[in-house]
């Protein structure tokens, strides 16, 4: 009985979460008037008109390329910087480390809109305004505190003996980071990549403001701009959304299997 209730709850919860996804997929394969009249109807027979129009328009492929570029370089940078910082904070117990820790925690609670104008000024001072590197650096700085937090939490489960054993084996901290710590942090890295990856991919305000209109759009900004451009062709809008979210879904599914627990098992005793 209990099991059935649990199963029922699971089904209802999944349905709630999957319904929007269904709407996007179904409507991306329907014609415009069908969408307006019967939004929940399955796409029978399906049509690829919307998808091909969007892809041929070129707008979405350019947006995808930009988004992949920005998201990819941001999360790669975050991964390296945050895990190194977390490891450094983990092994040092200096006062500087504690102060740094406080600053990082403060970074977690800053809302973007508040700092967007100063950030723009800083980027302008560095001549990085309206550029991909500028946006990537800002996003990295903005999301790194979260990643540091995740890494530090995970580092706590890495036995201290392991690091000391590596020290005794003659390794420097740099070598220990690459050869011992980073491999052990794989599950944490998977979480960091997925979570910050989704945030950066879905980010709208930062690329809109920091990138400006001349450098091209990310998919989110592109979607926003296409609303007026296509004078709301729902078929194409849904097709656009499908194309824009497909990479995130794929990314998640690929990394999901790395959320393995117990990688640490067998290290000690």
């Amino acid at each position, binding site marked *: 009985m209990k099991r059935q209730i649990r199963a029922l709850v699971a089904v209802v919860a999944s349905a709630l979460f999957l319904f929007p996804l269904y709407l996007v997929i179904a409507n991306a394969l329907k014609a415009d008037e069908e969408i307006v009249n019967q939004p929940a109807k399955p796409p029978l027979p399906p049509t690829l008109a919307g998808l091909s129009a969007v892809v041929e328009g070129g707008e979405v492929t350019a947006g995808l390329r930009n988004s992949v570029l920005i998201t990819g370089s941001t999360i790669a940078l975050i991964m390296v910087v945050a895990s190194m910082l977390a490891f450094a904070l983990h092994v040092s117990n200096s006062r500087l480390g504690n102060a740094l820790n406080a600053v990082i925690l403060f970074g977690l609670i800053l809302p973007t809109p508040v700092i967007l104008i100063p950030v723009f000024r800083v980027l302008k001072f560095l001549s990085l305004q309206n550029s991909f590197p500028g946006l990537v650096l800002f996003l990295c700085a903005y999301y790194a505190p979260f990643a540091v937090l995740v890494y530090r939490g995970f580092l706590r489960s890495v036995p201290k003996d392991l690091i*000391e054993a590596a020290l005794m084996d003659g390794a420097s901290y740099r070598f220990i980071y690459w050869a011992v710590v980073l491999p052990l942090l794989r599950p944490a890295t998977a979480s960091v990549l997925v979570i910050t990856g989704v945030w950066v991919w879905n980010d709208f305000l930062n690329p809109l403001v920091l990138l400006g209109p001349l450098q091209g759009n990310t998919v989110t900004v592109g979607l926003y701009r296409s609303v007026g451009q296509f004078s709301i062709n729902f078929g194409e809008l849904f097709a656009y959304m499908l194309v824009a979210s497909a990479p995130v879904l794929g990314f998640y599914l690929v990394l999901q299997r790395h959320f393995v627990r117990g990688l640490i098992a067998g290290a000690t005793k």
Partner: protein
Amino acid sequence: MASVQLANVTKEYVSGTAAVSRLTLDVADGELVVLVGPSGCGKSTALRMIAGLESITEGDLFIGGERMNDVASHERDIAMVFQSYALYPHLTVGENMGFSLRVGRVPKRERAERVRAVARTLGLDELIDRKPRELSGGQRQRVAMGRAIIREPQVFLMDEPLSNLDAKLRSEMRAEISDLQARLGVTTIFVTHDQVEAMTMGHRVAVLREGELQQVAAPYELYRHPANLFVASFIGNPSMSILRFAVEAEHRRLAAGPARLDIPEPVLARRPGLLGTAEALVGLRPEHLRLAGDAESGNALDGVVRGVEALGSDTFVRVECAGSAESASDAAAGGESPTPGGPMVTVRAPGSASARPGQHCRVAVDLDEAHFFDPAGDPIR
């Protein structure tokens, strides 16, 4: 290979605990010295200072004659075996053992050869491609050993490496480590809280108590001539029984409750100080006590059997002695409250002995072999 010298080495943690106080210890080149003592006495701390994992508050550490206080761990050329083994979980057995060679940029081919050679000596050939989590406790222990010996370091440090093994495996590994150490001739410092391990493995044994060195000596020397009451009661299994007696100088005897023991002439000759004290703590090893017949004359204590531990070859009999004298064993162990009832002694009897709890008995005492301490725990000379 190298010698290790500690000169007045002290460790005070930030919290203020003095974990090790003014430890002075010379370990000769190729020697195996065991650090032993009860839990919390500072053994690990001492070892970690030698390893460079813990800073030295005061004093000097020399390895191979060079002062090492401020040299980083990875430059001391020391290998350490951890109690937890600390194997890298993401690497195979071979990669674990070869890690230090990889750090030292030993070419891949040579690395593989040395890993194979060490694996063969330790009987790990078959397991070279396994991950640590796929090994038994004993196998992990071997890998940890392999990781230490592959580097051919100046010094081995081992922190209770056998404490996670079962009794049988532990005694096998004791012999194996002793063997290996003798064969390689590497200076080794071995930490344990198990006095059997200390006695069987150490060329010399250093006994620590609350961060202070009590005695360093060869195992038998330690057993025969403990420097103080603490060492006397810590070394030996079952441990020495310690009884508190009043010294009746005019009768040349010891008295406690109804018991009277005559002090033999040779003992007095060796320890003239004995008659000058009012009270003495007398340490008696189980093998110097005997279950005696009622008719026997000579020094003996009357008592009641309280416990029997038959090991087959020997039977150890716990006897509660009659009388008001209190057992001093507890005082030696660190001032816990004395056990209620009379003082207890442990007697070694033949395996065939038939003693039952509750039975009355007489325990013959060989005072020639006894150890005498004053109430402060120092030996009476």
